[in-house]
C-alpha cells in the first residue's frame, strides 16, 4: 500500500518542467492520466448503454398514443404487465426454459472441464481452444444448424426413418421447448466450460493428496474438496448462461414455435409488429428486475449452502 502512495506523482521534475498548465497537471497526476485513458471507452459506454437505458426507463412509464407517445408518466404499462396473464406466463416460461438449459449446461460441462483440468497434461491450450472455438462462430448459424438437425425432415428424423426405427417423423423435435433448451445448452457451453475450468485448475493438488493420505476415497475427496472449491466457477457459469439466455429471442424465433416463444420474442413484437414501444420498454425493465432478483436469491442460497458445506 505504502509503495503505491510513494510512486504516485514521482515523475522526474525535468519532464514536468517543460510542460505547462493542463499538460503539467495531467503529467503529474497518474490518477488523472488513468481517467483520461479510460474516458474514450467510458464515453462510448455512456452513449451506448447508460443514456439509452435511462430513456428506456423513462419510456416504460409512457403510453402509446397513436403513432406517437404520450409522455405523461403513468404506471399503466406496469399495471397491464401484472394484470394480463400472458406477460407473466411468457416470463415464467423464459425462466423455466433458460433455467433448465443452464442446469443442463453446467452439469454436462463440469465433467468436461474436470477432465481438462485434471487429466490433460499435454496440449492443454489446444483443448481449451477446441472447446471454446464453436462459441465464437456465428450464433445465428449454430441455431440454424440445429434447425437442420432437428427439423421435420432434418438429420435425426430422416436418418431414423431411413434406418426404419420410426415410421413417421418425430414432431416434438422442432418447434418446441425441447428444441430451444437443446440449442441454448449447446450454444452456451463455452460460457460454462471456461469458468468451471479456471476454478478447477486453481485447486491446490496437495489438498487432494493430503485427503487421500488421510484415508478419503475418490468420492469423498470430490465432495469435500473439489466440489466446494470449484463452487465459484459453478456460480459464475450459472450466471453467464442464465442471464443472457432468458432474454434470447433468436433461438425461440427459429426453433421454438408457439410453445417455445419467450419474453424476448414478446419484447421484439412490441417494437415490431405490435408497435407499442412503451410496453416493450416496460417488459424490458421488468425482465431486468426479475433477472436481478433471481441472481440475488441464487447468490444468497449458494452462500448459505457453501457455509454449511464448510
Amino acid at each position: 500500500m505504502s509503495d503505491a502512495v510513494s510512486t504516485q506523482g514521482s515523475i522526474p521534475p525535468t519532464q514536468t518542467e517543460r510542460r505547462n498548465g493542463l499538460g503539467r497537471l495531467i503529467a503529474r497526476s497518474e490518477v488523472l492520466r488513468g481517467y483520461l485513458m479510460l474516458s474514450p471507452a467510458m464515453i462510448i459506454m455512456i452513449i451506448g448503454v447508460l443514456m439509452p437505458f435511462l430513456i428506456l426507463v423513462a419510456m416504460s412509464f409512457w403510453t402509446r398514443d397513436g403513432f406517437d407517445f404520450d409522455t405523461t408518466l403513468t404506471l399503466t404499462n406496469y399495471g397491464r404487465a401484472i394484470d394480463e396473464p400472458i406477460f407473466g406466463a411468457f416470463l415464467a416460461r423464459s425462466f423455466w426454459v433458460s433455467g433448465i438449459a443452464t442446469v443442463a449446461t453446467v452439469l454436462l460441462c463440469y465433467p468436461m472441464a474436470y477432465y481438462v483440468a485434471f487429466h490433460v497434461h499435454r496440449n492443454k491450450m489446444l483443448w481449451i481452444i477446441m472447446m471454446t472455438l464453436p462459441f465464437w462462430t456465428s450464433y445465428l448459424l449454430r441455431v440454424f444448424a440445429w434447425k437442420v438437425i432437428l427439423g421435420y425432415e432434418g438429420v435425426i428424423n430422416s436418418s431414423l426413418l431411413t434406418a426404419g426405427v420410426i415410421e413417421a417423423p418425430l414432431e416434438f423435435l422442432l418447434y418446441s421447448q425441447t428444441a430451444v433448451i437443446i440449442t441454448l445448452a449447446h450454444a452456451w457451453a463455452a460460457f460454462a466450460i471456461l469458468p468451471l475450468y479456471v476454478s478447477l485448475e486453481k485447486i491446490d493438488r496437495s489438498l487432494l493428496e493430503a485427503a487421500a493420505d488421510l484415508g478419503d476415497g475418490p468420492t469423498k475427496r470430490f465432495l469435500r474438496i473439489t466440489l466446494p472449491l470449484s463452487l465459484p466457477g459453478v456460480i459464475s457459469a450459472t450466471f453467464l448462461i442464465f442471464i443472457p439466455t432468458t432474454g434470447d429471442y433468436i433461438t425461440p424465433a427459429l426453433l421454438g414455435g408457439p410453445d417455445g416463444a419467450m419474453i424476448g420474442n414478446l419484447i421484439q413484437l412490441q417494437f415490431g409488429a405490435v408497435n407499442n414501444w412503451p410496453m416493450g420498454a416496460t417488459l424490458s425493465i421488468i425482465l431486468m428486475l426479475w433477472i436481478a432478483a433471481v441472481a440475488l436469491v441464487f447468490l444468497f442460497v449458494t452462500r448459505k449452502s457453501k457455509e454449511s458445506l464448510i
Partner: protein
Amino acid sequence: MSDVSYIRRPNRVLTVYAYIFLIVLYLPVLSIPLFAFNDSIYVRFPLQGFTTQWFVQLWERESLWDALGNSLRVGFFVAALSTALGVLAARAITRTRLPGQSAIVAFVMLPIVMPGIIFGVALLVLLSRIGIPLSLYTVTLGHMIVCLPFAIATLLPRFEGFDKSMEEASADLGENGWFTFWRVTFPIVLPGIVASLLLTFTISFDEVIMAFFLTGTEPTLPMYIWSQLRFPREFPSVLALSTIILFVSFIMVFAALYIGRMGLQKNDR
C-alpha cells in the same frame, strides 16, 4: 504407472465422455457443410450426390455482395476502434489505481452479462428520440458496445502479465511516455492486440441481436441470412454461404485464441 500420482491416474470413462462431448459440440456445425454440397434442395438423408452449384449460385447475388460489404466495413471499423479503446482502458486499469475503478470495470463489462435484447431496444429508443435514422453507423455503435468488453477482457491479461519495471527502466533511461509505449509496451502486448482485433471483428461480423434492432436499409450479412431463412427453397444457398462463413471464422478465431495465449502461460507461472 508408478510415477503417475493416483489422483492423476487416467480415467477411461471421463476420457470417453470428453471425446463424445467434443463430437457433439462440433456435429451440428459440421452438418452445414455436409448439406451445402448435397445435390438436393431438401436438407435430409440420404444424401443425393455431390454438387457445388449452391456455391456457384452465390456469385450471382448482388444483394449478398452488398451485405458482405456492409458487414466487412462495420467489422473493420469496430475491430480497430474497440481494440484501440481497449488498449487505453486496459493500460489505465492495470497501471494506475483509480478511485472507483472496480465500479468502472463492472460498468464496462456489463454487456457481457446482460441480455443483448435490452441493449438493442434501449439504443433503438435513444436513437429514435434524438432523431438519428438507423444506418450502418448505428449498427457500428451497437457492435462497439458488444465488442468493447471482449477487447478489454482479451487485452487485460497481456497488460497484467508483463513486468512493470520494464516500462520504468525505459523511463529511467530517458524515454518519454510516448516512446516507452511504442518501444516497450506495444511489442509486448502486440499478441493481445492481434487477438483482440481478430475476435472483435468476428463478433461484429456474426452479430445479429443488436443488428436486428439497429439495421436501417442496408443489411449486414447475418441480417441478410436471417431474411433468407424464411424461404425453405433458399436453404441450400444459405447452407453454402454459412459454410464459407464458418470456415473463415474458424480459422480467424483459432488464430486469435492461439496468438492471444502465446507466451501467456510462461508469464503466469
